[in-house]
């Protein structure tokens, strides 16, 4: 690798990327507030922060998806404005996104060249492919990042690490025509990798330093500290720290990210009411998703499962509700082992599931709120196969009153209500069941305003008091500490810690340490 040919056009000390007082707000929310940071040449800069800290918004600004309200962005010492993603590409910023953006049925070479293919390129002049040239170019770029993948391989035949390498190679390819020293942004590239795979990728990322600079976004702090030369910490849309590696410990980074930490109160009551658990998992596992998950939730108790992306907790919940299969262990509902478990059986046994994808999975937006409300358990809304529309409307109005759903018109299609009011109706749909035994909530507060969150939490507590077992996947650690009687921590498909809040009072830091 010769650095001479890749020498920057301007002075060596000009940073590859420099942000000065960049701000972006949505309505009254300041997603990014006065952010200034630098990514110097031949350095790997880590960017960390909780969800909602503004990382994603900042990345979208850097890739031209959002335009900042104010502030200056400079690449190579020149101010730039990104009006569309192509502008960012033209300025030499390549991105490896969180989710895969490769076309899996095409070859590695095609994917690497794809952005250029759709415009003008020597290898595809007049719409005809020159495979030889295409493969040679791809091999050369792959060699730059130290990868030995055959460019003729189909992407679907590659391992996950290799795909990430292809993505990085593609990000470089985009730049090289225009830019000598590219900046590659990696958005949580290791979050779905096995630990040993992540190690390989780490090595490759460090190697990227030789040819350009890297902005590395991750939630694995140990990894950030190993890979990065500098770490930028964001909180509440602002940069709260910009430190060199070696100046900071993992523990200190945690504190910087979280601000002050919160601690759970020890529950006073919190005792199990029934002798038989409402739901009990014994060594539950699904290959590739989660393994050896065991827990029991008694009626009237609540369990929160926390974990980072890839922890497998969503899959566990879906397995409980019969949405996804499990291939090892047993599941017991009300004391008896289930056989041939399905969503329909789960509903009959009094299980309820509130999915995080509310609009797609949680409701039928085109049906009226009243219709949605009685979809699962019609009760007074039907006599046998016949619907009783008036009785239903009356019942719906009562629920609207109880949960303060606005507008107070259950005849409107549910899709026209705001998110918070939709979620209230989705909750009510399940709470109407007399035999409700287990309430599973997957991120029930996602996207809700404080008022609606309060109502939803009140309903969860009420259901619990009525004897339902609650299993909660919270949005925030505070939510877990506030709502749960017991907290499970999962990482990479396994349970790494259990806290019984009747006897312990863990802090959010305690939980976080077991998550990442």
């Amino acid at each position, binding site marked *: 690798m010769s650095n001479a040919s890749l020498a920057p056009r301007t002075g060596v000390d000009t940073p590859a990327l420099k942000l000065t007082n960049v701000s972006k707000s949505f309505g009254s929310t300041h997603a990014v507030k006065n952010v200034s940071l630098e990514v110097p040449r031949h350095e790997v800069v880590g960017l960390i922060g909780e969800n909602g800290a503004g990382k994603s918004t900042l990345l979208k600004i850097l890739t031209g998806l959002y335009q900042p309200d104010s502030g200056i962005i400079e690449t190579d010492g020149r101010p730039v404005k990104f009006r569309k993603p*192509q502008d960012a590409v033209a300025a030499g910023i390549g991105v490896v996104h969180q989710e*895969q*953006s*490769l*076309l*899996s*049925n*095409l*070859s590695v070479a*095609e994917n690497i060249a*794809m*952005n250029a*293919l*759709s*415009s003008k390129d020597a290898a*595809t002049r007049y*719409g*005809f*492919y020159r*495979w*030889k040239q*295409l*493969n*040679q170019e791809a*091999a*050369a770029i792959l*060699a730059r990042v130290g990868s*030995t993948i*055959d*460019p*003729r*391989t*189909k992407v679907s*035949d590659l391992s996950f690490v290799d795909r990430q390498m292809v993505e990085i190679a593609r990000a470089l390819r985009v730049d090289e025509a225009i830019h000598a020293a590219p900046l590659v942004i990696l958005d949580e590239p290791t979050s779905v990798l096995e630990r040993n795979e992540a190690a390989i990728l780490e090595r490759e990322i460090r190697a990227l330093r030789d040819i350009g600079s890297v902005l590395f976004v991750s939630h694995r702090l140990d990894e950030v500290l190993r890979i990065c030369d500098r770490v930028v910490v964001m909180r509440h849309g602002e940069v709260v720290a910009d430190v060199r590696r070696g100046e900071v410990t993992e523990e200190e980074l945690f504190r910087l990210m979280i601000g002050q930490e919160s601690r759970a109160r020890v529950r006073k009551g919190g005792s199990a009411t029934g002798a038989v658990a409402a739901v009990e998992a014994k060594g539950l596992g699904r290959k590739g998703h989660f393994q050896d998950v065991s827990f029991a939730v008694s009626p009237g108790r609540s369990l929160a499962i926390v974990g980072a992306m890839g922890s497998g907790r969503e899959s566990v919940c879906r397995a409980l509700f019969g*949405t996804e299969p499990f291939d090892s262990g047993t599941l017991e509902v009300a004391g008896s082992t289930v056989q041939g478990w*399905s*969503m329909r059986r789960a509903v009959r046994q009094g299980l309820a599931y509130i999915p995080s994808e509310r609009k797609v999975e949680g409701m039928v937006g085109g049906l009226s709120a009243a219709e949605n409300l009685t979809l699962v358990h019609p009760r007074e809304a039907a006599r046998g196969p016949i619907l009783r529309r008036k009785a239903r409307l009356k019942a719906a109005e009562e629920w609207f009153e109880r949960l303060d759903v606005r507008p107070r018109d259950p005849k409107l299609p549910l899709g026209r209500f705001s998110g918070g009011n939709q979620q209230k109706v989705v909750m009510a749909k399940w709470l109407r069941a007399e035999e409700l035994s287990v309430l599973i909530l997957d991120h029930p507060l996602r996207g809700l305003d404080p008022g609606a969150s309060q109502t939803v939490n009140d309903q969860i507590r009420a259901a619990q008091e009525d004897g339902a077992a609650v299993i909660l996947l919270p949005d925030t650690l505070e939510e877990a500490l506030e709502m749960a009687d017991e907290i499970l921590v999962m990482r990479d498909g396994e349970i790494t810690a259990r806290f019984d809040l009747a006897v312990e009072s863990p802090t959010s830091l305690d939980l976080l340490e077991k998550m990442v």
Partner: protein
Amino acid sequence: MTDKDTGTGLLEQAPAPSQPPLRAGRRFEFKNLGEVLALVGLIAVFTALNPATFLTPENLRTILDHASLPLIIGVGATLVILTGSIDLSVEGVMGAAGMTFVLMTANSRGSADLGPWAIVAALAVGVGLGMLSGLVHTRLKVPSFIVTLGVWFVGLGIATVLFGDQSIPFLPDGGIKAWPSTLTFGVPNAFLLAAAFVLAGMFVARFTRLGRFAYAIGDSEEISKGNGIPVLRYKLYVFVVAGFCSAAAGVLAALELGAGSATVGVGTLFLTIAAVVIGGTSLGGGKGGILRTAVGVLMLTALNNGLILSGVSPNIQSAVSGTVLIAAVLVATWPHRSRLRIVK
């Protein structure tokens, strides 16, 4: 580093990392030879059942002759299905193009004689109808099955209107009418034309932006868009190519029939879609290929031919195609079955 599957089924030695690969050596589309083996098996079974009649040069010519139309249409149909859409308009386009051709060339009505321009006009009709399907589908976002269903009948209507209420226009004996069944190198011209279409289609699928983008779009429209592919434009092109192929098939069918008929394409839609699916091209898009469709067409044609030779009524031909279609889709989708999969 070990050998890698390059998507061709042919194991190739992965090149040493320091040496970039120089050979783009995958012209062959099969991941496995299952379909070819099935075809060979089919031929073996029917040869055993009809030793005197099935594997004769005359009968083989008949099979190749019958395979010509679906082969030509299969090229366009495969491209459309690769993008994840569907083209049901085949029979209508064939009718319209075939009728256009007959009425513009020397015929018993004496309506016009434009010579070779008749073929150009017929192909233009096909391209126009393909463009109509493509535009309505991509610009007005109407699902392809409903647009092409409409265009199917638009095509039939055009053919019927052109036909009018006069006598049937026959092509004169001799001359171009004899061309499809004339033998060149012992093979009917119709099949040679079809083979040319298949080869051209394979070239398009492998070596042009149109073909590669069709695969990309079928894999994921979202990601394709994110990669800068003008998805809508290329979907339109694919429908135009399909219209062109159907029109060419319509002209060929009219020549073989020797007369103008709106229903010249009856039965080809099943046969083609069944052949595409049984060849291994997924209705979901992104997977498959034109050579696979060609093998599928030969399988179905041999099957129909063999059944008839074995004394089965020709009336059940459409049932054979229909059953094969259902069975092929069922087998192809079975491994992907999941309670959460939404199939419309």
